[in-house]
């Protein structure tokens, strides 16, 4: 595949393969094309989930029934949760930016198993389709929330089987992605790229990969048990048959808490890349960043109990889980300090991705601190199952992963598409998005603290003011989102051509043309320096 000198290799977007048109995408094993397949499917499902959220906020604009029934509201938050968690934020950064950039950043031509990579996309689409089918087929949509808590999940007449099985298939897709990345990093780093010369985004994907590999099967088997419970009445979690519903919660959170780190770790990696590049300065405490990513992944396994402080556990268990929850905050704080220290005395280049990174740190810290409040036992009893929790995890999951996703989108957009976007509209979109975000979720802290429970379509009159502000915030957020997406799409045609390295980044992806050629590198680079070599 070596090209003659002087002949420019076509980019992966223009490459003529065995198939034409749509098939050249859905049958492609090129990691870059698969990344874009993921990007478009994830954006579509994100639009579905966000619209559901918007409608839910509209329902909550006044007490009593506004636009939907209680049952419809239950179905809405269930679908919103399943789609957003399993189909958007868990695959989000790894499957899109991980797929696109991981091989390039470690100097490889593709991932270790390109065909398994494509298979995982097919599984992903199958899983989401099953979840969506559950809405229309059978006796009505699922109404359990995304957590499928027993025993309701096998008592409800809602159409649970496709939803649960869809989540199982999505888990399988996630395992395969994680496995692929792990093997790629173990076996395919460019010559000279020792583990400690690997950039931080791959490092966080490495930590994520292990979580995907070792935590996802637990929810896989748990969901299968729910399926067996519904079809065969085995009794694992059914108290009338001797089973223990609490055990379901344990098993569920044994995966679903680590899953939070599947969502946030790659986000932290992307933010590390952005902050280094736009500070034009080596990342502060590279080794600490690596260790803290691994530590988050490791300690993250042992904190699941903090979702169940009011479910009934022994005092010892409560103290232990609370303590461990506080411990997991330390590596996250290390990262925040290191980002700030990287900016210190750097030559800051105030571009859109950098603004996203700053906004990320802001909302992530609010989310993180509110997490500490929830992690302390006494406060948790008061705040459990209130809107405070909803606010907390939206600040982390949407604020953390979502902001990082759009930050990464604006950072790597020139590399992926070969075009620059309109910075002015991008910034306007960001500002609206940010204002909308704070207005939407900020009041929820107050509402929850005052005692408004989550997952109800109705509320007491005293909560009215906060809910009005919150619902208005959802409109601002949604318009910001629309501007961002429209701007990015419009720039595909109108944007200026992007140079290989528009931001002055030092990692390997900026050494190859934008968009990258099919084989990424003409010659596999030999690495002699660290990843962020600013002098």
């Amino acid at each position: 595949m070596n090209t003659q000198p002087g002949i420019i290799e076509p980019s992966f977007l223009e490459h003529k393969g065995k198939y034409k048109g749509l098939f050249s995408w859905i049958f492609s094993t090129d990691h870059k094309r698969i990344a874009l397949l993921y990007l478009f499917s994830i954006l579509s499902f994100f639009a579905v989930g966000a619209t559901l959220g918007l409608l839910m906020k509209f329902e909550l604009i006044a007490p009593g029934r506004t636009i939907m029934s209680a049952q419809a509201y239950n179905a809405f938050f269930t679908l919103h949760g399943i789609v957003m968690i399993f189909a958007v934020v868990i695959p989000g950064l790894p499957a899109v930016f991980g797929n696109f950039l991981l091989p390039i950043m470690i100097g490889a031509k593709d991932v270790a198993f390109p065909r398994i990579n494509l298979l995982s996309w097919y599984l992903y689409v199958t899983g989401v389709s099953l979840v969506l089918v559950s809405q229309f087929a059978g006796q009505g949509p699922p109404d359990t929330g995304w957590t499928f808590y027993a025993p309701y999940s096998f008592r409800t007449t809602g159409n649970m089987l496709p939803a649960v099985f869809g989540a199982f298939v999505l888990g399988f897709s996630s395992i395969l992605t994680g496995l692929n990345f792990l093997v790629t990093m173990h076996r395919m780093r460019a010559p000279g790229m020792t583990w400690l010369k690997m950039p931080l985004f791959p490092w966080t994907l490495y930590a994520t990969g292990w979580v995907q590999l070792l935590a996802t099967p637990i929810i896989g088997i748990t969901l299968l048990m729910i399926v067996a419970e519904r079809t065969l009445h085995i009794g694992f979690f059914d108290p009338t048959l001797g089973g223990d519903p609490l055990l379901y919660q344990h098993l569920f959170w044994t995966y679903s808490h680590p899953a939070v780190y599947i969502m946030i770790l790659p986000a932290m990696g992307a933010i590390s890349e952005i902050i280094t590049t736009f500070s034009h300065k080596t990342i502060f405490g590279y080794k600490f960043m690596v260790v803290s990513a691994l530590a988050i992944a490791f300690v993250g396994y042992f904190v699941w109990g903090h979702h169940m402080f009011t479910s009934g556990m022994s005092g010892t268990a409560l103290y232990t889980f609370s303590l461990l929850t506080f411990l997991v905050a330390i590596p996250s704080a290390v990262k925040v300090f290191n980002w700030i220290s990287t900016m210190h005395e750097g030559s800051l280049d105030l571009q859109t991705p950098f603004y996203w990174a700053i906004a990320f740190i802001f909302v992530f810290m609010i989310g993180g601190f509110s997490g500490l409040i929830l992690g302390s036992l006494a406060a948790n009893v008061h705040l459990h199952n209130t809107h405070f929790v909803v606010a907390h995890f939206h600040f982390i999951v949407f604020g953390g992963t979502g902001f990082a996703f759009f930050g990464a989108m604006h950072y790597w957009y020139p590399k992926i598409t070969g075009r620059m976007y309109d910075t002015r509209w991008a910034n306007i979109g960001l500002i609206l998005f940010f204002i909308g975000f704070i207005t939407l979720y900020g009041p929820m802290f107050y509402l929850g603290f005052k005692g408004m429970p989550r997952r109800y379509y109705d509320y007491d009159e005293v909560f009215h003011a906060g809910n009005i502000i919150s619902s208005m915030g959802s409109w601002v957020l949604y318009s910001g989102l629309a501007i961002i997406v429209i701007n990015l799409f419009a720039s595909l045609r109108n944007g200026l051509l992007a140079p290989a390295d528009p931001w002055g980044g030092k990692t390997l992806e900026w050494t190859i043309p934008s968009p990258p050629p099919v084989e990424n590198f003409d010659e596999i680079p030999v690495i002699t320096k660290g990843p962020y070599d600013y002098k």
Partner: protein
Amino acid sequence: MNMTPEIHRDDLTSKTGMWFFLFTEMLLFGGLFIVYSIYRFRNPVAFHLAAHELSIPIGTINTIILLISSTTIAMSITAIQKKAKKLALLLIGITILLGLAFLVNKYFEWGKHLKENIYPGSPVLALRGQGDVLFYGLYFFMTGLHALHIIVGLIFICVITSMIYRDKINYDNFVLLENSGLYWHLVDLIWIFLFPLFYLIT
């Protein structure tokens, strides 16, 4: 670019991938082992009595069958490395037969329980109390999932056999056989834990 897999072949990478996949499989069953140990802890007497009803001879025979089949597939890997294609085919054929024998035994074992009206959700079982319901629920679910793995493994091994026959797998390129062997050993390993948990500990 995937059209020339021979050139990009990297056996160690494939094997690493397989090992990582086996970790996932172990944790899949790990979840069930946790559920088992918790319910055994809560219903010690019922689990003890129910375990007496399982046939130790059939369980033992099945254990021996799986252990031998693991040996034969491992031997076939060595055989193919020594260019003894016929021997490799013979050994892997024995593996397939042993795997089928395991399933046949399982069929009779399950059949006996079903004849006695013992299956998840049966009224007879419900009358015997919650400990028995959980024991047999776990028994059917775990051995059922294990049998599913046996079936998947057998399908893989059949494909592998045809590839050996057509010389797609040969002394120089046998990583697929090796990976199937790894998978088969895992299925064996899980049975090594299932057997004492359900049949022997009484």
